[in-house]
């Protein structure tokens, strides 16, 4: 998303010197934009801090940035906090891995089989539109308080996102490429591997990118309902103790983690989809 000069070293050098200079300008513009964006955040934090300092707001309820950052520094060196964090992240990983794999496979199968899709589509739509975090208590009932119920909550979210994106994606093969596959006498298998699946990949990736974030969401919600470890548990207990700055510190950590996950997915996506030539 940011610096794209070396996006296609093989070709950019010879046929498109013009594109190079455009990119260089783009980076300059982007750095300017970035510093402006950071400034907005700093100004907001400063206003918050000043409002707290002059007692315009009640720090008992809304905390203050300096206290939040202090709590954050404390958390970063606290092995108990990291125990919670690791528990949440491990569950997020498994929820994502299981949900996205099964969901993508199910989507690809449903896209291939018309009658299976016809039979199951109404139910998939209903399950998908229902607020699935409401299932979290049920998973805790089924799998007990612990890792498994958190993973189940995450899978219930990720599965449908992956399924719907994979299904939509594998229907995007256009008429011309389909004709080519037919003209080349491709077998069903070859057609899938060399035509249907590559066409679906961008859409599948869009689902995976969402899926990572939703996996974290599912895990934290499950932890907030009932858990022995995890950041969701930490959030509830800090809230109950009115420890607002510590609560903000956890939220800050979650925000950083989800941004990192999202960015890594974007990076991976750009690498695998460099044939699209998007900025």
């Amino acid at each position: 998303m940011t610096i794209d000069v070396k996006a296609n070293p093989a070709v950019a050098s010879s046929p498109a010197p013009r594109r190079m200079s455009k990119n260089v300008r783009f980076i300059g513009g982007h750095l300017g934009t970035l510093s402006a964006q950071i400034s907005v955040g700093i100004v907001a934090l400063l206003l918050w801090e000043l409002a707290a300092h002059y007692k315009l707001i009640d720090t008992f309820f809304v905390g203050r940035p300096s206290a939040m950052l202090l709590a954050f520094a404390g958390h970063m060196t606290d092995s108990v906090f990291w125990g919670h964090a690791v528990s949440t992240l491990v569950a997020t990983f498994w929820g994502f891995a299981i949900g996205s794999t099964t969901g993508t496979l199910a989507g690809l199968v449903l896209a291939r089989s018309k009658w299976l899709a016809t039979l199951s589509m109404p139910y998939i739509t209903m399950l998908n539109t229902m607020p699935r975090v409401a299932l979290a208590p049920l998973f805790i009932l089924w799998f007990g308080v612990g890792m498994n119920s958190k993973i189940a909550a995450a899978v219930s979210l990720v599965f449908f996102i992956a399924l719907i994106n994979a299904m939509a994606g594998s229907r995007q093969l256009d008429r011309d490429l389909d004709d080519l596959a037919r003209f080349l006498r491709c077998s069903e298998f070859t057609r899938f591997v060399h035509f249907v699946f590559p066409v679906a990949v961008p859409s599948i990736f869009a689902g995976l990118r969402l899926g990572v974030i939703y996996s974290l969401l599912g895990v934290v919600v499950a932890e907030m309902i009932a858990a022995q470890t995890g950041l969701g548990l930490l959030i509830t207990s800090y809230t109950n103790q009115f420890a607002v700055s510590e609560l903000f510190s956890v939220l800050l950590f979650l925000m950083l983690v989800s941004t990192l996950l999202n960015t890594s997915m974007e990076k991976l996506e750009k690498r695998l989809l460099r044939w699209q030539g998007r900025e």
Partner: protein
Amino acid sequence: MREQAARAVEMSAARGAAGEAASLDIDVVDIDHYFRSQSDRPVHAVDDVSLQIPQGQFVALVGPSGCGKTTLLNMIAGLVEPSSGRIMVGGTPIKGSRPEFGYVFARDTLLPWRTVRQNVEFVLAMSGVDRRERAGIANDWLKRVGLQDFGDAYRYQLSQGMRQRVAIARTLATRPRLILMDEPFAALDAQTRLILQNEFIRLWEETGATVVFVTHDLTEAILMSDRVVLMTRRPGRIKIDKLIDLPRPRNLEADRFTPEFRLSYDQLSDALREELDRL
């Protein structure tokens, strides 16, 4: 008309002798074709068309849009099954496309997730060319169309003209005995079109392959082909079947100032205008 057909056989026999492989004469017999349409009434697309094309002949199919010329082409390619009548190629009825056919589509239909070289290699693989030979053949053909430096480029990095060059290279690389082309130069600007027409003619003249070429451009049809078949407005019938008596090798720039071109053009464009005016 009969006389002309006899001459066509002679002409191509002379050229066919230079070629080596088996001849694939095309025999289209009493073809009728109906499309299913939105309304209940089927659309009569092709009306009682019969057409003999000897091996090695370059035939252009022209006519108003929607006259069924592409449908006829796709029937010869084995992509569309006629409602009635039969099509024989090399003495056997057409059931699907064959390895000795090549198709250049109106849009380039390159696989965007494959590099230029991989695109050529894929079509070679589908035509049963041995793995060890593919890279060599691909490089050779990329050189012949002037794209030797673009083997590693993706589709998005190529201009429209370059894409169509790859499409031509990948089709000719399989050494087809019958080349089907559906307005292959229509999407190009005038300059690029002329260059590619010349290149294609030059490459084709070495092959002895039959070409069936759909176009709506009369000039292109006359300058490139041995024979122009003009179809009527839907339902498409053959209105004029005319041999073009211009010597080979052709010179697309100079030939358009010959009396033969002028006469053919006048005759065909009058007939085409008649069809366009008929409603």
